[in-house]
C-alpha cells in the first residue's frame, strides 16, 4: 500500500514543488531547483498567450463536448428505433471506431484530408458542396482546429453512444408508454421522462468528456503537425508541452499543469463531487 501510495503521490508532490522552483536544463543536471516562490505562476498569468490559449481551449472543449454529447445522444436514440440487424451493424461499426488507436486515427485523417487527392475534397466537390479541388485544410487555425474537432468527436462517439444506449435501455417502458397515452409529444416524453432517468450517465459522460477534451494533446499535436504548431492554434495541452518541455522550463510547465488542473476541476465539478461521494460511501 505504501509503495502504491508513493507511486501515485510522488509525481503530484513533485508537481507542486516544481511549480515553485526555477527548474531548467541546468537544474535538471544538478538534480535540484532554485526556489522562486510564486514567480512561475505570476509570469504565466501575465502571458498573453496563456489567456488566448485558455479561451481557445474552453471554446474548443465546449464545442467538442457539446457535439459529442448531442450526436451521441441522437445515435443512442436511433439505436432504440432501428431493427435488430441495423443495431448490430451500427454497434459493430462503433466498436471498430472505438478500437482505433489515436495515432492511427490521426494518420487516417491526414490521408483523407490531404490537399493533393484527399477523399474528403473529392466527396465534397462531387456532392456540389463547393469546389474543394486541392483545398488545403491546414492553412488557418480555425480549419485546423475544426479538423481536430471532427477527429476527436468521431473517436469519442462510440464510448458515449454505447454508454448512453445502455442507460436508455434502463428507462422503464411503462413510464414512456404511460406518458404517450397521456398525450405527451415525443419531445416532452424525452425531456420529462427519459432524461431524468439517464441523468447520472449524462452527467458523468459530460464531465469525463470535459476532462479529456480540455487536456487533449495527441490529436492536435500530430494532426496539425509539429512544424505547424504556432501560438495561434495552441490548445492548453500543447501550450504546456511547448512552454515546459520544449523550452525545458520545467518549473513553469509544472505551474501550467496546476493551473490546468484547477480549471478542469472547476469545469467538471459534478464528476469530482460524485466520485468523492462514491469513494467516501463505500
Amino acid at each position, binding site marked *: 500500500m505504501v509503495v*502504491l*501510495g508513493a507511486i*501515485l503521490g510522488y*509525481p*503530484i508532490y*513533485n*508537481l507542486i514543488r*516544481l511549480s515553485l522552483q526555477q527548474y531548467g536544463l541546468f537544474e*535538471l543536471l544538478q538534480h535540484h531547483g532554485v526556489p522562486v516562490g510564486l514567480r512561475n505562476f505570476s509570469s504565466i498569468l501575465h502571458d498573453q498567450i496563456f489567456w488566448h490559449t485558455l479561451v481557445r481551449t474552453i471554446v474548443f472543449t465546449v464545442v467538442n463536448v457539446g457535439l459529442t454529447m448531442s450526436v451521441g445522444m441522437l*445515435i443512442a436514440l*436511433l439505436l432504440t428505433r*432501428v*431493427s435488430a440487424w*441495423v443495431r448490430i*451493424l451500427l454497434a459493430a*461499426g462503433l466498436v*471498430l*471506431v472505438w*478500437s482505433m*488507436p*489515436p*495515432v*492511427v*486515427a*490521426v*494518420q*487516417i*485523417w491526414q*490521408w483523407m484530408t*490531404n490537399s493533393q*487527392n484527399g*477523399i474528403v475534397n473529392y466527396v465534397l466537390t462531387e456532392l456540389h458542396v463547393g469546389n474543394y479541388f486541392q483545398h488545403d485544410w491546414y492553412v488557418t487555425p480555425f480549419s485546423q482546429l475544426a479538423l481536430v474537432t471532427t477527429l476527436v468527436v*468521431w473517436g469519442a*462517439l462510440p*464510448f458515449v453512444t454505447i*454508454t448512453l444506449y*445502455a*442507460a436508455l435501455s434502463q428507462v422503464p417502458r411503462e413510464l414512456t408508454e404511460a406518458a404517450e397515452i397521456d398525450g405527451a409529444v415525443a419531445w416532452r416524453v424525452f425531456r420529462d421522462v427519459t432524461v431524468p432517468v439517464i441523468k*447520472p*450517465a449524462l452527467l*458523468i459522460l459530460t464531465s469525463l468528456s470535459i476532462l479529456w477534451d*480540455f*487536456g487533449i*494533446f495527441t490529436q492536435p499535436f500530430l494532426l496539425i503537425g509539429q512544424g505547424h504548431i504556432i501560438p495561434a492554434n495552441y490548445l492548453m*495541452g*500543447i501550450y*504546456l*508541452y511547448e512552454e515546459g*518541455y520544449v523550452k525545458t522550463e*520545467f518549473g513553469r510547465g509544472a505551474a501550467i*499543469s*496546476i493551473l*490546468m*488542473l484547477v480549471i478542469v*476541476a472547476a469545469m*467538471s465539478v459534478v464528476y*469530482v463531487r460524485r466520485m*468523492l461521494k462514491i*469513494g*467516501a460511501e463505500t
Partner: protein
Amino acid sequence: MRSRSAWNTVGVALFVVMAFPVFWMVSTAFKADDQINSITPTWFPLHPTLSHFRAALARPYFWTDVKNSLIVVLATVLIATAVAFLAAVALAKYRFTGRGAFIVLMIGIQMLPGAGLIIPLYVVLARYHQVNALSGVIITYLTFALPFCVYTLRGFILGIPKDLEEAAMVDGSTRFGAFAKILLPLVAPGLVATAVFTFVTSWNEYIFARTLLNDQSKQTITVWLSYFLGTGRQTDWGALMAASTLTSIPVVVFFLLVQKRIAFGLTAGAVRG
C-alpha cells in the same frame, strides 16, 4: 412500418459514415500506388497488393519498436494487474488510516490532464536515469493504469458477498485458501477487463513514449508511426496505411474479444447512480 425502415436507412447511412475512415485505411493499404495517387478515387482494391505491407515492415526500426511496445505493454499489464489486485483487496476488505485520502489521490491522478504529468515525471525519471529507458516508460504507464485497475477491481471485490469467504474459512480453509478458491475465480472477469484495458491504453499511448524515449531503437510503435510521414516530399500513403493497419490489429482483436464486458464494466458505474 414505414418509420422503422426510414430509421433503418438513417442507421445504415450512419454506419457507412462512421466506419468509412477505417475502411479507407484498409482499402488504401491494399491498393496499387497509381490507384492511391490518382485524383479519382478507387473505392475497392480490386487487384489487392501486399507490397505496401512489405514496404512498411522493411522500414528501419519497425520490428525493434514493435518489440519495445510488447515489452512495455506486457510488463505494465502484469505488474498493474498483480499490484492492483492486492491493493483492491486491501481497499475493499480492510480499514486502514488514510484510506479516504488514498481514494481521493487515485481519483486526482485520473483527473490530471495527461499532458500535466509529463513535466514532474520527466524530472523525477531524469533524476534516477530512467529517461530514454523502457523501464521509465513502464513506471509511467503504471501511474496511469494502477488507479483505474484498483478502482475497477475494488468494485468487483465489493460485489462478492463476505459470507462466501467467511463460510470457506469456517469450513477449515486458511485465509489464503479462501482467497485462492473463492475470491480469485469470482474476480477473474474483473482481472481480464483491467488487463485488457491496460493493454489497450499502453499500446495506444503516445505522449509519454514520445517525450521519454529519444532513441529510435528504443521507441514504441505509436512513436514510430507518428514519425512515418517524416520530411519527405512524396508521402507513401500506401505504406503509411499498411503500417497503421498493422498497428491497430492487436487493439481491434482485443476489443472484439472483450467488447461486451468492457461496455458493461464502464456502464455499470455510470448507470448505477
